[in-house]
């Protein structure tokens, strides 16, 4: 019955006009009041309703109460702290979405086809044993450092550098106003870690390095400590990989004194590996300055 009433209201919304209904009755107003409250009436009908409200104090009081309640509901919901999204979740989700967006095609899907599985596995075995045989003949000092997945350290760092730059743009620069306003507190352990980054920079380069924020971020699905610092007007991100105890992506034989510098999307990235963790320094500083920061941090972290 009420559905029928609502549909009738719908028809009325289309049909009622100022010319047709010069004087609205209270009963008609009540039928239209919900749609009027939601501002969903035609202009002509609005005018008719408005004139009725001017003339009828009972309907005016009733409508004012309904409108006040509507505003009250909206305000009460908007001001509930539990209804606000957490910044941590927002950043985590952004990072995951970005990783997903720029991820390479799902080559793993090939394995779902049993007809392709045998040749692929055969090729992988040949590659693995062939590669192992070749590497055994190399001088370990001069050979490329090989990551467990088969990538060199350089290609490993380069690949993640691109994502670190994206994370710097999305997180450090994207939320810069929040970091600068200090509205998001830094947890105790993160504050200590940030000091470990800022202190050697202040000691060795300049005293004006300011910590904006420190938190965990996902880059390429790996957990990194993300320290955002500022020197003058320049914002710098330092990403330090958080490896689990005993877990190391690159073999310990890695040359830990090499720093790789690259330019990605207009930003400088200096990356290096220390004590099993990959470290990325991202900024819009000139290459020598960005590299200098990476050197200072590399020396500091190696101790």
């Amino acid at each position, binding site marked *: 019955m009420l559905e029928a009433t609502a549909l009738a209201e*719908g028809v009325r919304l289309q049909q009622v006009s100022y010319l047709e209904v010069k004087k609205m009755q209270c009963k008609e107003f009540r039928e239209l009041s919900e749609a009027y409250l939601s501002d969903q009436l035609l202009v002509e009908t609005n005018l008719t309703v408005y004139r009725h409200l001017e003339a009828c104090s009972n309907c005016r009081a009733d409508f004012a109460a309904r409108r006040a309640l509507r505003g009250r509901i909206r305000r009460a919901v908007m001001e509930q702290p539990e209804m606000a999204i957490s910044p941590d979740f927002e950043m985590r989700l*952004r990072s995951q979405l970005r990783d997903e967006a720029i991820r390479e095609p799902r080559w793993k899907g090939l394995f779902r086809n049993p007809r392709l599985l045998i040749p692929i596995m055969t090729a992988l075995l040949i590659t693995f044993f062939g590669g192992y045989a070749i590497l055994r003949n190399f001088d370990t000092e001069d050979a490329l450092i090989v990551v467990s997945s088969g990538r060199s350290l350089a290609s490993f760092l380069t690949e993640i550098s691109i994502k670190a730059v994206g994370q710097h743009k999305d997180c450090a620069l994207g939320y810069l106003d929040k970091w600068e306003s200090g509205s998001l507190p830094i947890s105790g352990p993160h504050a200590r870690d940030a000091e470990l980054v800022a202190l050697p920079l202040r000691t060795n380069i300049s005293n004006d390095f300011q910590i904006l924020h420190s938190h965990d971020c996902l880059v390429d699905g790996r957990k990194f400590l993300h320290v955002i610092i500022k020197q003058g007007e320049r914002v710098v991100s330092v990403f330090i990989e958080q490896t689990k105890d005993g877990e190391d992506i690159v073999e310990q034989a890695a040359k830990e004194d090499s720093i790789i510098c690259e330019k990605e999307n207009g930003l400088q990235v200096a990356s290096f590996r220390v004590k099993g963790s990959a470290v990325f320094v991202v900024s819009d500083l000139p290459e020598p300055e960005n590299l200098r920061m990476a050197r200072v941090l590399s020396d500091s972290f190696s101790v």
Partner: protein
Amino acid sequence: MKWFGDDKEEKWRAFSEEAMPFLPDLFRVAMWLTRNKDEAEDLVQETMFQGMKSFHRYELGTNCRAWLMAIMHNLNYKRIAKLNRMTLVDDPEEKLMETIPFEPSIPDQITDEQVISALKSVPDTFRDVIVLSDVEEYSYKEVAAILNIPIGTVMSRLYRGRRILRQTLAEHARSYGFGGGREAAAG
């Protein structure tokens, strides 16, 4: 498909600029749909991943907020169906409405907590429409598209939902000792 090329960064940038600003809105509605922070976060996450996957179907510059909200409600229907918690509320509410003899007014002393509590007590079917229309300020047409129901049903549910809400708030007020007497007498 015309709005971005094969560049993944460009695609991400477009999605990020169009969709990410609506995360707080999605989360707020998800909290009403799930009543649980973890589930709300899961629902928002699933919505955003689904939105990104289907972003080629979205026409840039149109109503991205309503588009994402529609995806979220669809996913929520599936979630509820999975949990096997689908309930029919129309008929009992129809009877409830018929038993409400008068339209009580709401005293000013009602607190925000009481308003939220009253809104929580409104049956899901009606509350979804109140939240979308009165809190999130979607038009009837947008609410109809999001919930995949006719505009007439939106109007009907909104009418009933608001009425239940007013009734509940009046009861709250009476239980706290203010308001309601005059209306009761009038009824």
